[in-house]
């Protein structure tokens, strides 16, 4: 999709009728994300337990870190034993794992994928470059800190992080969720304008609606 496709325009339908389309208003949801308060104590604990035991990871490798995801999916490491599963589309998953390097161009797709996911959702950042830029700290095309653009729950360091450390990272995420500290989604809703401003700073041709779930 290009920026031009989002302009208001007159379209001729298949039956010859002419009508005006405003893609941003007509095709996408404009509602902002809301902060969800936790449920009552025991019920919330039960929910958190259930959430932590079904992590569905978005199989989108934004960087080279994705290469260790593939061995992780093989029987040698059996992620299913850890209740982790990869899904192909954001609509089916709740953990986008932002793999390693984050060049600014997939960053345009990162928030989009994040916002399309169903809550509650958690972000796992793989690799050192998501923390402070790592190897690419002075590159003109990679972001330095992922937490300025998405609310990160768990960082996994290393370049590459080994499959074992990925598993450890997901286990850590499960612990956080069970303790009720996986509040990334609410954080995102609360500071929505800040995140959006940062995202727009690096994506100069903003061709998406502000919130597109």
């Amino acid at each position: 999709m290009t920026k031009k496709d989002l302009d208001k325009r007159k379209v001729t339908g298949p039956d010859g009728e002419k009508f005006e389309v405003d893609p941003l208003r007509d095709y996408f949801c404009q509602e902002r994300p809301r902060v969800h308060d936790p449920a009552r104590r025991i019920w919330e604990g039960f929910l958190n337990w259930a959430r932590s035991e079904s992590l569905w990871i978005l199989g989108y490798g934004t960087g080279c870190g994705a290469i260790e995801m593939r061995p992780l999916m093989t029987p040698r490491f059996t992620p299913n034993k850890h209740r982790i599963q990869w899904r192909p589309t954001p609509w089916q998953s709740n953990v986008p794992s932002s793999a390693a390097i984050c060049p600014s161009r997939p960053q345009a797709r990162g928030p989009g994928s994040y916002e399309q996911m169903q809550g509650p959702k958690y972000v796992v950042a793989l690799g050192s470059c998501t923390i402070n830029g790592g190897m690419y700290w002075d590159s003109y095309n990679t972001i330095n800190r992922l937490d300025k653009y998405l609310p990160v729950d768990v960082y996994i360091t290393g370049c590459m992080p080994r499959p074992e450390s990925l598993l450890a990272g997901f286990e850590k995420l499960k612990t956080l969720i069970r303790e009720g500290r996986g509040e990334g989604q609410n954080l995102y809703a609360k500071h929505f304008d800040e995140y959006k401003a940062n995202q727009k700073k690096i994506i100069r041709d903003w061709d998406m609606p502000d919130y597109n779930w």
Partner: protein
Amino acid sequence: MADKNKYREKFPEKDPDGSNIIDPESHKFIKVWQGPQHPGITGNMSLELILQGDEVMHCKTHVGYLHRGFEKLMERRRFIQCFPLVCRIAVPEPDFNEYCLAATLEELAGIKVPEAAKWMRTLILEMSRLTSFLMWLGGQSGAFGLGVAGQWTNYVRDLMLDRFEEISGGRIYRMHIPPGGVRGLTPDGFRARMEETLQAVEAAMKDVDRTLFDNAVFKRRTVGLGYIPPEMVDAYGVTGPNARAAGVPKDVRRDHPYLKYPELDFDVITGNDSDVYTRTDLRRKEILLSVDLIRQIMAKMPGSGEYMAKLPNVLHWKIPRGETYIRAECTRGEYGFYTVTDGSGYPRRINVRGPSYTHAVALMEKLAVDCNIADVAGLMSSLHTYPPEIER
């Protein structure tokens, strides 16, 4: 295969150069983006497909999702600082970057590499080719809906990574080939464990043979798909297995021998017609060839000896003005570094030539036309495209 073009002689109309004329206002076309977030994509790139029904009328490759600016970053780093950086350019087989950089600097600075180091480098490059092929085979079969072959090949690839870990301590980024030699030779008992791993690879390949190559579905879908005629090889800059499958015996290991390849006994494998099936079959043979080559290397390689040349103090290592091009045969084709130095402690420019640069853009855009959309992922896999080396 049935001639698909038979049904579509009249529509859409064609330009004089043979490309389809796309008129979006006619409401007969739909535009579909395959990628960047898509399981059928080999890495992080996207294809903009214009479809009529389920057939591709027009394809445009969009890359740049992994651009980290390596060539710019290397200009800011000293020669020895480039060494840990380059392996990140191509992730499935990073060793080719290290070798190319090391060989470039050795040639420009006039350093002679010890014999044992040359053998070790040959071993590492060949092991790296094997792991990359195994991973690719999983992707290729997965793209046609057969996930189980990928599970097996990824498992044996993991065993191979264990051998890498023994040698260098690294799983993915080995960083074992610094300028001047290698960081070490093989540890004790390595040969026996290597032989075990090679046997595991061969056993897995037998299973893959039965499930993938004898599979009627796979054969029906791939024979005749994505055909590359031999005259397209030079016109589109095709190298590596894609060219060899078309019957053009292009193999850097034979054409421009490097390291210890002249002392190894192997034939360049070629195919007859470069469709997806032939290319897959050729790479299967390449896997078996790699296994054989590793055995040969293990038999001939010395167990001890000098493995690092005397380098000047690398912290203020200045390389005289010059330029050179070093190439090596990676799994996807010709991998090369074109380096220009200006006599200072920093490279003036290093340009990386990844084989996917030509395969994924010019060739893919040509081959995808008239393909079924369900076959696009398999076609892209069969070219073995890998985005990071396109945009670096």
